[in-house]
Protein backbone atom coordinates (compact mmCIF):
# COMPACT_ATOMS: atom_id res chain seq x y z
CA UNK A 1 0.00 0.00 0.00
CA UNK A 2 1.23 3.47 -0.78
CA UNK A 3 0.71 6.68 1.13
CA UNK A 4 -2.69 8.21 1.74
CA UNK A 5 -3.50 11.04 -0.63
CA UNK A 6 -6.41 13.42 -0.80
CA UNK A 7 -8.45 12.97 -3.98
CA UNK A 8 -11.87 13.72 -5.37
CA UNK A 9 -14.16 10.72 -5.77
CA UNK A 10 -14.53 11.23 -9.51
CA UNK A 11 -10.77 11.34 -10.01
CA UNK A 12 -10.34 8.21 -7.94
CA UNK A 13 -12.83 6.42 -10.17
CA UNK A 14 -10.77 7.29 -13.23
CA UNK A 15 -7.46 6.40 -11.57
CA UNK A 16 -8.91 3.09 -10.37
CA UNK A 17 -10.08 2.22 -13.87
CA UNK A 18 -6.62 2.91 -15.28
CA UNK A 19 -5.04 0.79 -12.56
CA UNK A 20 -7.50 -1.99 -13.40
CA UNK A 21 -6.17 -2.00 -16.95
CA UNK A 22 -8.85 0.11 -18.63
CA UNK A 23 -7.27 1.78 -21.65
CA UNK A 24 -10.49 2.68 -23.46
CA UNK A 25 -12.79 5.34 -22.11
CA UNK A 26 -15.69 6.95 -23.93
CA UNK A 27 -17.80 9.62 -22.34
CA UNK A 28 -19.79 12.78 -22.58
CA UNK A 29 -19.64 15.51 -19.94
CA UNK A 30 -22.38 16.01 -17.37
CA UNK A 31 -22.34 17.38 -13.83
CA UNK A 32 -21.54 15.92 -11.30
CA UNK A 33 -19.20 13.36 -12.90
CA UNK A 34 -17.28 15.38 -15.48
CA UNK A 35 -14.00 15.08 -13.56
CA UNK A 36 -13.92 11.40 -14.56
CA UNK A 37 -13.67 12.47 -18.19
CA UNK A 38 -11.20 15.26 -17.39
CA UNK A 39 -8.88 12.83 -15.66
CA UNK A 40 -9.18 10.26 -18.43
CA UNK A 41 -8.53 12.88 -21.11
CA UNK A 42 -5.30 13.87 -19.40
CA UNK A 43 -4.03 10.40 -18.48
CA UNK A 44 -5.01 8.37 -21.56
CA UNK A 45 -2.83 10.58 -23.69
CA UNK A 46 0.12 10.11 -21.33
CA UNK A 47 -0.18 6.32 -21.25
CA UNK A 48 -1.19 5.75 -24.86
CA UNK A 49 -4.79 4.75 -24.15
CA UNK A 50 -7.92 5.83 -25.96
CA UNK A 51 -10.05 8.70 -24.77
CA UNK A 52 -12.99 9.81 -26.85
CA UNK A 53 -15.39 12.55 -25.95
CA UNK A 54 -18.27 11.18 -27.96
CA UNK A 55 -20.93 13.28 -29.63
CA UNK A 56 -23.55 11.94 -27.22
CA UNK A 57 -24.11 9.47 -24.42
CA UNK A 58 -25.67 7.06 -26.92
CA UNK A 59 -22.53 7.13 -29.03
CA UNK A 60 -20.32 6.70 -25.98
CA UNK A 61 -22.01 3.53 -24.71
CA UNK A 62 -21.91 2.04 -28.20
CA UNK A 63 -18.19 2.82 -28.44
CA UNK A 64 -17.78 0.94 -25.18
CA UNK A 65 -19.79 -1.90 -26.71
CA UNK A 66 -17.39 -1.95 -29.64
CA UNK A 67 -14.26 -1.88 -27.52
CA UNK A 68 -15.59 -4.57 -25.16
CA UNK A 69 -16.46 -6.72 -28.19
CA UNK A 70 -12.78 -6.65 -29.13
CA UNK A 71 -11.94 -7.97 -25.67
CA UNK A 72 -10.43 -4.89 -24.01
CA UNK A 73 -11.41 -3.36 -20.69
CA UNK A 74 -13.62 -0.38 -21.48
CA UNK A 75 -15.67 2.10 -19.49
CA UNK A 76 -18.04 5.01 -19.74
CA UNK A 77 -19.34 7.34 -17.08
CA UNK A 78 -22.25 9.70 -16.79
CA UNK A 79 -24.94 10.97 -14.47
CA UNK A 80 -28.62 10.13 -14.36
CA UNK A 81 -30.08 11.79 -17.50
CA UNK A 82 -27.05 10.62 -19.45
CA UNK A 83 -27.44 7.12 -18.05
CA UNK A 84 -31.05 7.05 -19.26
CA UNK A 85 -29.70 7.63 -22.76
CA UNK A 86 -27.24 4.77 -22.36
CA UNK A 87 -29.86 2.22 -21.32
CA UNK A 88 -30.43 0.84 -24.81
CA UNK A 89 -26.71 0.18 -25.16
CA UNK A 90 -26.52 -1.43 -21.72
CA UNK A 91 -29.38 -3.78 -22.62
CA UNK A 92 -27.60 -4.71 -25.87
CA UNK A 93 -24.36 -5.31 -23.97
CA UNK A 94 -26.14 -7.51 -21.43
CA UNK A 95 -27.75 -9.47 -24.27
CA UNK A 96 -24.44 -9.81 -26.09
CA UNK A 97 -22.78 -10.79 -22.77
CA UNK A 98 -20.19 -8.05 -22.96
CA UNK A 99 -17.99 -7.16 -20.00
CA UNK A 100 -18.02 -3.42 -19.55
CA UNK A 101 -18.14 -0.89 -16.75
CA UNK A 102 -20.59 1.98 -16.42
CA UNK A 103 -20.19 4.67 -13.77
CA UNK A 104 -23.34 6.49 -12.65
CA UNK A 105 -22.81 9.49 -10.37
CA UNK A 106 -26.44 10.04 -9.59
CA UNK A 107 -28.13 13.44 -9.61
CA UNK A 108 -31.72 14.28 -8.83
CA UNK A 109 -34.49 13.62 -11.34
CA UNK A 110 -36.76 12.93 -13.06
CA UNK A 111 -36.05 14.62 -16.36
CA UNK A 112 -33.16 17.02 -16.34
CA UNK A 113 -34.03 17.44 -12.65
CA UNK A 114 -31.10 19.13 -10.97
CA UNK A 115 -27.39 18.62 -10.44
CA UNK A 116 -27.51 17.88 -6.72
CA UNK A 117 -26.92 14.38 -5.32
CA UNK A 118 -29.59 11.69 -5.27
CA UNK A 119 -30.12 7.93 -5.22
CA UNK A 120 -33.17 7.92 -7.45
CA UNK A 121 -31.42 5.83 -10.14
CA UNK A 122 -31.77 2.68 -8.04
CA UNK A 123 -34.66 1.41 -10.13
CA UNK A 124 -33.04 2.16 -13.47
CA UNK A 125 -29.76 0.49 -12.56
CA UNK A 126 -30.91 -2.35 -10.32
CA UNK A 127 -34.21 -3.24 -11.97
CA UNK A 128 -33.28 -2.88 -15.59
CA UNK A 129 -33.63 0.52 -17.18
CA UNK A 130 -33.15 -1.03 -20.57
CA UNK A 131 -35.51 -3.57 -22.10
CA UNK A 132 -35.50 -7.31 -21.71
CA UNK A 133 -34.66 -9.91 -19.08
CA UNK A 134 -31.25 -8.96 -17.75
CA UNK A 135 -29.39 -7.72 -14.70
CA UNK A 136 -26.51 -5.34 -14.19
CA UNK A 137 -24.18 -6.08 -11.33
CA UNK A 138 -24.48 -2.87 -9.29
CA UNK A 139 -21.86 -1.76 -6.77
CA UNK A 140 -22.49 1.10 -4.33
CA UNK A 141 -19.43 2.66 -2.68
CA UNK A 142 -19.78 4.66 0.52
CA UNK A 143 -16.66 6.77 0.15
CA UNK A 144 -13.57 7.54 -1.84
CA UNK A 145 -11.47 4.56 -0.71
CA UNK A 146 -14.26 2.17 -1.58
CA UNK A 147 -14.75 3.85 -4.95
CA UNK A 148 -11.22 2.80 -5.79
CA UNK A 149 -11.69 -0.74 -4.60
CA UNK A 150 -15.08 -1.28 -6.19
CA UNK A 151 -14.07 0.14 -9.58
CA UNK A 152 -11.19 -2.35 -9.70
CA UNK A 153 -13.57 -5.11 -8.66
CA UNK A 154 -16.08 -3.96 -11.29
CA UNK A 155 -13.66 -4.76 -14.11
CA UNK A 156 -12.89 -8.18 -12.62
CA UNK A 157 -16.57 -9.02 -12.18
CA UNK A 158 -17.42 -7.82 -15.68
CA UNK A 159 -14.79 -10.10 -17.21
CA UNK A 160 -15.64 -13.03 -14.95
CA UNK A 161 -19.33 -13.00 -15.79
CA UNK A 162 -19.29 -11.31 -19.21
CA UNK A 163 -21.80 -8.79 -17.96
CA UNK A 164 -22.15 -5.02 -17.56
CA UNK A 165 -21.15 -3.81 -14.11
CA UNK A 166 -22.37 -0.48 -12.75
CA UNK A 167 -20.66 1.51 -10.03
CA UNK A 168 -23.29 3.84 -8.64
CA UNK A 169 -22.42 6.77 -6.40
CA UNK A 170 -24.23 10.03 -5.79
CA UNK A 171 -23.09 13.56 -6.59
CA UNK A 172 -21.50 14.01 -3.17
CA UNK A 173 -19.46 10.82 -3.61
CA UNK A 174 -18.13 12.15 -6.88
CA UNK A 175 -17.41 15.66 -5.68
CA UNK A 176 -15.97 15.06 -2.23
CA UNK A 177 -12.34 14.54 -1.35
CA UNK A 178 -11.16 11.95 1.12
CA UNK A 179 -7.95 10.07 1.67
CA UNK A 180 -7.32 7.18 -0.65
CA UNK A 181 -4.57 4.62 -0.42
CA UNK A 182 -3.78 2.86 -3.67
CA UNK A 183 -2.24 -0.59 -3.59
CA UNK A 184 1.19 -1.11 -5.09
CA UNK A 185 -0.48 -3.56 -7.39
CA UNK A 186 -4.16 -4.14 -8.01
CA UNK A 187 -5.59 -7.63 -8.06
CA UNK A 188 -6.43 -7.85 -11.72
CA UNK A 189 -8.10 -11.11 -12.62
CA UNK A 190 -7.38 -11.59 -16.29
CA UNK A 191 -9.59 -14.07 -18.06
CA UNK A 192 -9.17 -15.44 -21.54
CA UNK A 193 -11.63 -14.00 -24.02
CA UNK A 194 -11.81 -16.57 -26.81
CA UNK A 195 -15.18 -15.08 -27.77
CA UNK A 196 -13.76 -11.63 -28.57
CA UNK A 197 -14.05 -10.23 -32.08
CA UNK A 198 -10.44 -9.14 -32.35
CA UNK A 199 -9.29 -10.65 -35.60
CA UNK A 200 -9.20 -14.36 -36.44
CA UNK A 201 -6.21 -14.15 -38.81
CA UNK A 202 -8.22 -16.74 -40.72
CA UNK A 203 -7.03 -19.37 -38.23
CA UNK A 204 -10.38 -19.93 -36.55
CA UNK A 205 -14.04 -19.36 -37.32
CA UNK A 206 -15.22 -15.77 -36.96
CA UNK A 207 -16.51 -14.66 -33.59
CA UNK A 208 -19.79 -12.83 -33.70
CA UNK A 209 -20.97 -10.45 -30.98
CA UNK A 210 -24.70 -10.05 -31.11
CA UNK A 211 -27.83 -9.77 -29.05
CA UNK A 212 -30.24 -10.70 -31.81
CA UNK A 213 -31.81 -14.16 -31.73
CA UNK A 214 -34.83 -14.35 -34.03
CA UNK A 215 -35.96 -17.88 -33.16
CA UNK A 216 -38.04 -18.08 -29.98
CA UNK A 217 -36.41 -21.25 -28.68
CA UNK A 218 -32.94 -19.98 -29.45
CA UNK A 219 -33.51 -16.69 -27.62
CA UNK A 220 -35.19 -18.46 -24.70
CA UNK A 221 -32.19 -20.79 -24.38
CA UNK A 222 -29.88 -17.78 -24.47
CA UNK A 223 -31.85 -15.96 -21.77
CA UNK A 224 -31.97 -19.13 -19.67
CA UNK A 225 -28.20 -19.34 -19.98
CA UNK A 226 -27.94 -15.71 -18.82
CA UNK A 227 -30.18 -16.50 -15.85
CA UNK A 228 -28.04 -19.47 -14.84
CA UNK A 229 -25.22 -16.96 -14.70
CA UNK A 230 -27.34 -14.54 -12.67
CA UNK A 231 -28.29 -17.27 -10.18
CA UNK A 232 -24.60 -18.00 -9.69
CA UNK A 233 -23.89 -14.29 -9.18
CA UNK A 234 -26.70 -14.11 -6.61
CA UNK A 235 -25.25 -17.12 -4.79
CA UNK A 236 -21.66 -15.91 -4.72
CA UNK A 237 -21.26 -12.18 -5.22
CA UNK A 238 -23.66 -10.44 -2.81
CA UNK A 239 -21.76 -8.08 -0.52
CA UNK A 240 -22.96 -6.24 2.54
CA UNK A 241 -21.69 -4.54 5.66
CA UNK A 242 -23.59 -5.23 8.87
CA UNK A 243 -22.52 -2.75 11.52
CA UNK A 244 -23.71 -2.76 15.14
CA UNK A 245 -26.60 -5.10 14.23
CA UNK A 246 -26.24 -7.75 16.94
CA UNK A 247 -28.55 -6.75 19.78
CA UNK A 248 -29.80 -3.66 17.95
CA UNK A 249 -33.26 -2.25 18.75
CA UNK A 250 -33.70 -0.80 15.27
CA UNK A 251 -31.79 -1.49 12.06
CA UNK A 252 -31.31 1.18 9.41
CA UNK A 253 -30.76 0.05 5.84
CA UNK A 254 -28.88 2.56 3.72
CA UNK A 255 -26.15 2.74 1.10
CA UNK A 256 -23.76 5.40 -0.18
CA UNK A 257 -24.03 8.85 1.40
CA UNK A 258 -27.12 7.84 3.42
CA UNK A 259 -25.06 5.09 5.07
CA UNK A 260 -22.46 7.68 6.01
CA UNK A 261 -25.05 9.93 7.64
CA UNK A 262 -26.46 6.87 9.42
CA UNK A 263 -23.08 6.24 11.11
CA UNK A 264 -23.51 9.55 12.92
CA UNK A 265 -27.11 8.71 13.79
CA UNK A 266 -25.93 5.46 15.39
CA UNK A 267 -23.66 7.46 17.72
CA UNK A 268 -26.39 10.00 18.52
CA UNK A 269 -28.89 7.25 19.29
CA UNK A 270 -26.42 5.38 21.50
CA UNK A 271 -26.15 8.49 23.71
CA UNK A 272 -29.92 8.27 24.17
CA UNK A 273 -29.75 4.59 25.04
CA UNK A 274 -31.05 3.26 21.72
CA UNK A 275 -28.94 0.71 19.89
CA UNK A 276 -29.16 1.18 16.15
CA UNK A 277 -27.60 -1.13 13.57
CA UNK A 278 -26.76 -0.50 9.94
CA UNK A 279 -27.16 -2.92 7.07
CA UNK A 280 -25.31 -1.39 4.15
CA UNK A 281 -25.72 -3.19 0.84
CA UNK A 282 -22.47 -2.88 -1.12
CA UNK A 283 -23.92 -4.81 -4.05
CA UNK A 284 -27.38 -3.46 -4.88
CA UNK A 285 -27.65 -6.31 -7.35
CA UNK A 286 -27.22 -9.03 -6.33
CA UNK A 287 -29.17 -7.74 -3.34
CA UNK A 288 -27.77 -9.05 -0.02
CA UNK A 289 -31.00 -10.70 1.09
CA UNK A 290 -29.28 -13.00 3.57
CA UNK A 291 -28.30 -10.09 5.82
CA UNK A 292 -31.92 -9.03 6.11
CA UNK A 293 -33.03 -12.61 6.75
CA UNK A 294 -30.39 -12.91 9.47
CA UNK A 295 -31.62 -9.82 11.31
CA UNK A 296 -35.29 -10.15 10.40
CA UNK A 297 -36.34 -10.38 14.05
CA UNK A 298 -34.80 -7.05 15.15
CA UNK A 299 -37.21 -6.05 17.96
CA UNK A 300 -38.43 -2.65 16.77
CA UNK A 301 -38.13 -3.14 13.04
CA UNK A 302 -36.28 -1.62 10.09
CA UNK A 303 -35.90 1.90 8.78
CA UNK A 304 -34.76 2.44 5.21
CA UNK A 305 -33.10 5.76 4.45
CA UNK A 306 -32.66 6.89 0.87
CA UNK A 307 -32.13 9.99 -1.23
CA UNK A 308 -35.25 9.07 -3.20
CA UNK A 309 -38.96 8.58 -2.66
CA UNK A 310 -38.30 4.93 -1.76
CA UNK A 311 -36.72 2.51 -4.21
CA UNK A 312 -34.37 0.13 -2.36
CA UNK A 313 -37.07 -0.19 0.32
CA UNK A 314 -38.98 -2.48 -2.05
CA UNK A 315 -36.08 -4.96 -2.15
CA UNK A 316 -35.87 -4.89 1.64
CA UNK A 317 -39.57 -5.68 1.93
CA UNK A 318 -39.11 -8.54 -0.52
CA UNK A 319 -36.11 -9.84 1.40
CA UNK A 320 -38.04 -9.73 4.70
CA UNK A 321 -41.19 -11.11 3.09
CA UNK A 322 -43.47 -9.70 5.78
CA UNK A 323 -41.40 -10.91 8.72
CA UNK A 324 -40.93 -7.42 10.17
CA UNK A 325 -42.05 -3.84 9.76
CA UNK A 326 -40.10 -1.64 7.32
CA UNK A 327 -40.38 2.13 7.71
CA UNK A 328 -39.02 4.57 5.20
CA UNK A 329 -37.46 8.01 5.38
CA UNK A 330 -36.30 9.71 2.21
CA UNK A 331 -35.51 13.12 0.82
CA UNK A 332 -35.35 14.03 -2.81
CA UNK A 333 -34.72 16.91 -5.19
CA UNK A 334 -31.06 17.02 -4.18
CA UNK A 335 -31.69 17.10 -0.44
CA UNK A 336 -29.96 14.61 1.80
CA UNK A 337 -31.72 13.05 4.82
CA UNK A 338 -30.45 15.01 7.79
CA UNK A 339 -28.80 13.41 10.79
CA UNK A 340 -31.35 14.90 13.21
CA UNK A 341 -34.31 13.94 11.04
CA UNK A 342 -33.17 10.33 10.75
CA UNK A 343 -32.57 10.24 14.50
CA UNK A 344 -36.12 11.51 15.03
CA UNK A 345 -37.50 8.68 12.90
CA UNK A 346 -35.38 6.10 14.71
CA UNK A 347 -36.54 7.31 18.11
CA UNK A 348 -40.19 7.13 17.07
CA UNK A 349 -39.68 3.54 15.92
CA UNK A 350 -37.75 2.67 19.08
CA UNK A 351 -40.62 4.03 21.21
CA UNK A 352 -43.01 1.83 19.28
CA UNK A 353 -44.83 4.76 17.72
CA UNK A 354 -44.12 3.44 14.25
CA UNK A 355 -42.21 5.13 11.50
CA UNK A 356 -43.37 6.65 8.25
CA UNK A 357 -44.34 4.34 5.42
CA UNK A 358 -43.22 4.62 1.86
Amino acid at each position, binding site marked *: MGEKILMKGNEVIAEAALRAGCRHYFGYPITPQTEVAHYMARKMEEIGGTFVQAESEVAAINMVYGAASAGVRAMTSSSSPGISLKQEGISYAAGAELPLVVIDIVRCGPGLGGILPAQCDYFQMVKGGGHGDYHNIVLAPQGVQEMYELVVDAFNLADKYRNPVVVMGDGYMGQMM*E*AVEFRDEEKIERVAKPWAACGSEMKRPHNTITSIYIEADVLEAHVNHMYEKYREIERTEARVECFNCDGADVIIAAYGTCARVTRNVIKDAAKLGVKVGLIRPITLWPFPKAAFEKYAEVPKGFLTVEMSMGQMVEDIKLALNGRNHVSFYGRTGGNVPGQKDILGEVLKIARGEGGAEK
Partner: protein
Amino acid sequence: MDHQIIFAGFGGQGILSMGRFIAHAGLHEGKHVSWLPSYGPEMRGGTANCNVIVSDEEVGSPIISAATALVVMNQPSLEKFESYVEPGGVIVLDSDLVPVRPAREDVRVFALPATKMAYDMGNATFAGVILLGKLLAETGVVRFDSFEAALKGILKPKKHYLIPQEMEALKAGAEY
Protein backbone atom coordinates in the same frame (compact mmCIF):
# COMPACT_ATOMS: atom_id res chain seq x y z
CA MET B 1 -11.03 15.58 18.72
CA ASP B 2 -13.54 16.04 15.96
CA HIS B 3 -13.37 19.33 14.03
CA GLN B 4 -16.34 20.07 11.78
CA ILE B 5 -15.69 23.30 9.92
CA ILE B 6 -17.78 25.17 7.37
CA PHE B 7 -16.04 27.62 5.02
CA ALA B 8 -18.33 29.99 3.12
CA GLY B 9 -18.17 33.09 0.98
CA PHE B 10 -18.25 34.24 -2.62
CA GLY B 11 -16.87 32.18 -5.48
CA GLY B 12 -13.36 33.37 -6.32
CA GLN B 13 -12.35 34.15 -2.73
CA GLY B 14 -10.56 30.84 -2.41
CA ILE B 15 -13.16 29.33 -0.07
CA LEU B 16 -12.83 25.82 -1.49
CA SER B 17 -9.03 26.08 -1.41
CA MET B 18 -9.07 27.20 2.22
CA GLY B 19 -10.95 24.06 3.10
CA ARG B 20 -8.65 21.97 0.99
CA PHE B 21 -5.54 23.31 2.77
CA ILE B 22 -7.04 22.37 6.13
CA ALA B 23 -8.06 18.88 4.96
CA HIS B 24 -4.65 18.33 3.45
CA ALA B 25 -2.90 19.53 6.61
CA GLY B 26 -5.11 17.23 8.69
CA LEU B 27 -4.17 14.27 6.52
CA HIS B 28 -0.52 15.26 6.94
CA GLU B 29 -1.02 14.81 10.69
CA GLY B 30 -2.49 11.36 10.15
CA LYS B 31 -6.04 12.48 10.92
CA HIS B 32 -9.17 11.27 9.18
CA VAL B 33 -10.42 13.98 6.85
CA SER B 34 -13.18 14.78 4.37
CA TRP B 35 -13.78 17.80 2.11
CA LEU B 36 -17.22 18.27 0.63
CA PRO B 37 -17.73 21.25 -1.68
CA SER B 38 -20.94 22.96 -2.67
CA TYR B 39 -21.40 22.33 -6.36
CA GLY B 40 -25.12 22.94 -6.71
CA PRO B 41 -27.23 25.89 -7.79
CA GLU B 42 -25.91 28.18 -5.06
CA MET B 43 -22.49 27.94 -6.71
CA ARG B 44 -24.02 29.17 -9.95
CA GLY B 45 -25.32 32.11 -7.94
CA GLY B 46 -21.77 33.06 -7.04
CA THR B 47 -21.46 31.71 -3.51
CA ALA B 48 -19.24 28.87 -2.46
CA ASN B 49 -18.94 26.75 0.63
CA CYS B 50 -17.35 23.55 1.78
CA ASN B 51 -17.63 21.18 4.73
CA VAL B 52 -14.32 20.01 6.13
CA ILE B 53 -13.97 17.38 8.83
CA VAL B 54 -10.68 16.66 10.60
CA SER B 55 -11.06 13.92 13.15
CA ASP B 56 -9.19 11.41 15.28
CA GLU B 57 -11.87 8.91 14.35
CA GLU B 58 -13.10 7.69 11.00
CA VAL B 59 -15.37 10.29 9.39
CA GLY B 60 -19.03 9.26 9.42
CA SER B 61 -21.15 11.73 7.52
CA PRO B 62 -19.14 14.17 5.40
CA ILE B 63 -22.13 16.51 5.68
CA ILE B 64 -21.91 18.81 8.69
CA SER B 65 -25.05 19.17 10.77
CA ALA B 66 -23.39 20.84 13.77
CA ALA B 67 -20.22 22.83 13.10
CA THR B 68 -17.42 23.33 15.59
CA ALA B 69 -16.27 26.32 13.54
CA LEU B 70 -17.42 28.58 10.72
CA VAL B 71 -15.17 30.77 8.57
CA VAL B 72 -17.13 33.34 6.56
CA MET B 73 -16.21 35.89 3.95
CA ASN B 74 -19.59 37.43 3.10
CA GLN B 75 -22.79 38.48 4.80
CA PRO B 76 -25.22 36.00 3.15
CA SER B 77 -22.99 33.10 4.20
CA LEU B 78 -22.97 34.23 7.81
CA GLU B 79 -26.76 34.44 7.79
CA LYS B 80 -27.06 31.03 6.16
CA PHE B 81 -24.59 29.12 8.33
CA GLU B 82 -24.59 30.93 11.70
CA SER B 83 -27.22 28.57 13.07
CA TYR B 84 -25.06 25.53 12.20
CA VAL B 85 -22.43 26.43 14.79
CA GLU B 86 -22.80 24.47 18.00
CA PRO B 87 -22.79 26.36 21.32
CA GLY B 88 -19.22 27.17 22.30
CA GLY B 89 -18.13 26.96 18.68
CA VAL B 90 -16.04 29.47 16.78
CA ILE B 91 -16.97 31.96 14.06
CA VAL B 92 -14.08 33.64 12.22
CA LEU B 93 -15.11 36.40 9.83
CA ASP B 94 -13.63 39.09 7.65
CA SER B 95 -15.04 42.29 9.14
CA ASP B 96 -14.27 44.18 5.91
CA LEU B 97 -16.73 41.95 4.05
CA VAL B 98 -19.23 41.04 6.79
CA PRO B 99 -20.59 44.33 8.14
CA VAL B 100 -23.31 42.88 10.38
CA ARG B 101 -22.09 40.77 13.32
CA PRO B 102 -23.50 37.36 14.28
CA ALA B 103 -26.62 37.42 16.42
CA ARG B 104 -25.46 34.40 18.40
CA GLU B 105 -24.18 35.02 21.91
CA ASP B 106 -23.27 31.43 22.73
CA VAL B 107 -20.37 31.21 20.27
CA ARG B 108 -16.92 32.77 20.16
CA VAL B 109 -16.70 35.35 17.38
CA PHE B 110 -13.41 36.58 15.90
CA ALA B 111 -13.78 39.49 13.49
CA LEU B 112 -10.60 40.37 11.59
CA PRO B 113 -10.16 43.12 8.98
CA ALA B 114 -8.55 40.45 6.85
CA THR B 115 -9.00 42.17 3.50
CA LYS B 116 -7.33 45.36 4.73
CA MET B 117 -4.58 43.38 6.43
CA ALA B 118 -3.97 41.50 3.18
CA TYR B 119 -3.79 44.73 1.18
CA ASP B 120 -1.34 46.12 3.71
CA MET B 121 0.77 43.01 3.20
CA GLY B 122 0.73 43.70 -0.51
CA ASN B 123 -1.39 40.74 -1.63
CA ALA B 124 -5.20 40.85 -1.47
CA THR B 125 -5.43 37.07 -1.91
CA PHE B 126 -3.98 36.55 1.59
CA ALA B 127 -7.28 37.49 3.28
CA GLY B 128 -8.33 33.85 3.47
CA VAL B 129 -5.03 32.69 4.94
CA ILE B 130 -5.21 35.46 7.55
CA LEU B 131 -8.61 34.10 8.64
CA LEU B 132 -7.19 30.58 8.69
CA GLY B 133 -4.48 31.83 11.04
CA LYS B 134 -7.13 32.79 13.56
CA LEU B 135 -8.97 29.50 13.00
CA LEU B 136 -5.80 27.53 13.72
CA ALA B 137 -4.98 29.62 16.77
CA GLU B 138 -8.46 29.28 18.29
CA THR B 139 -9.35 25.69 17.40
CA GLY B 140 -6.00 23.94 16.98
CA VAL B 141 -7.51 22.02 14.08
CA VAL B 142 -4.06 21.58 12.53
CA ARG B 143 -0.55 22.73 13.40
CA PHE B 144 1.20 25.58 11.57
CA ASP B 145 3.90 23.27 10.23
CA SER B 146 1.23 20.94 8.84
CA PHE B 147 -0.37 23.90 7.13
CA GLU B 148 2.98 24.73 5.55
CA ALA B 149 3.32 21.12 4.40
CA ALA B 150 -0.16 21.36 2.86
CA LEU B 151 0.84 24.49 0.96
CA LYS B 152 3.88 22.68 -0.39
CA GLY B 153 1.76 19.71 -1.35
CA ILE B 154 -1.00 21.64 -3.10
CA LEU B 155 0.61 24.71 -4.65
CA LYS B 156 2.39 24.23 -7.94
CA PRO B 157 6.21 24.54 -7.59
CA LYS B 158 6.22 27.85 -9.45
CA LYS B 159 4.03 29.26 -6.64
CA HIS B 160 6.22 27.96 -3.81
CA TYR B 161 8.00 31.32 -3.57
CA LEU B 162 4.74 32.58 -2.00
CA ILE B 163 4.84 30.11 0.91
CA PRO B 164 6.94 32.26 3.30
CA GLN B 165 4.54 35.17 2.73
CA GLU B 166 1.51 32.88 3.19
CA MET B 167 2.97 31.73 6.50
CA GLU B 168 3.53 35.36 7.54
CA ALA B 169 -0.13 36.05 6.74
CA LEU B 170 -1.20 32.98 8.72
CA LYS B 171 0.82 34.23 11.69
CA ALA B 172 -0.61 37.74 11.37
CA GLY B 173 -4.13 36.32 11.51
CA ALA B 174 -3.31 34.11 14.49
CA GLU B 175 -1.85 37.02 16.44
CA TYR B 176 -4.52 39.58 15.59
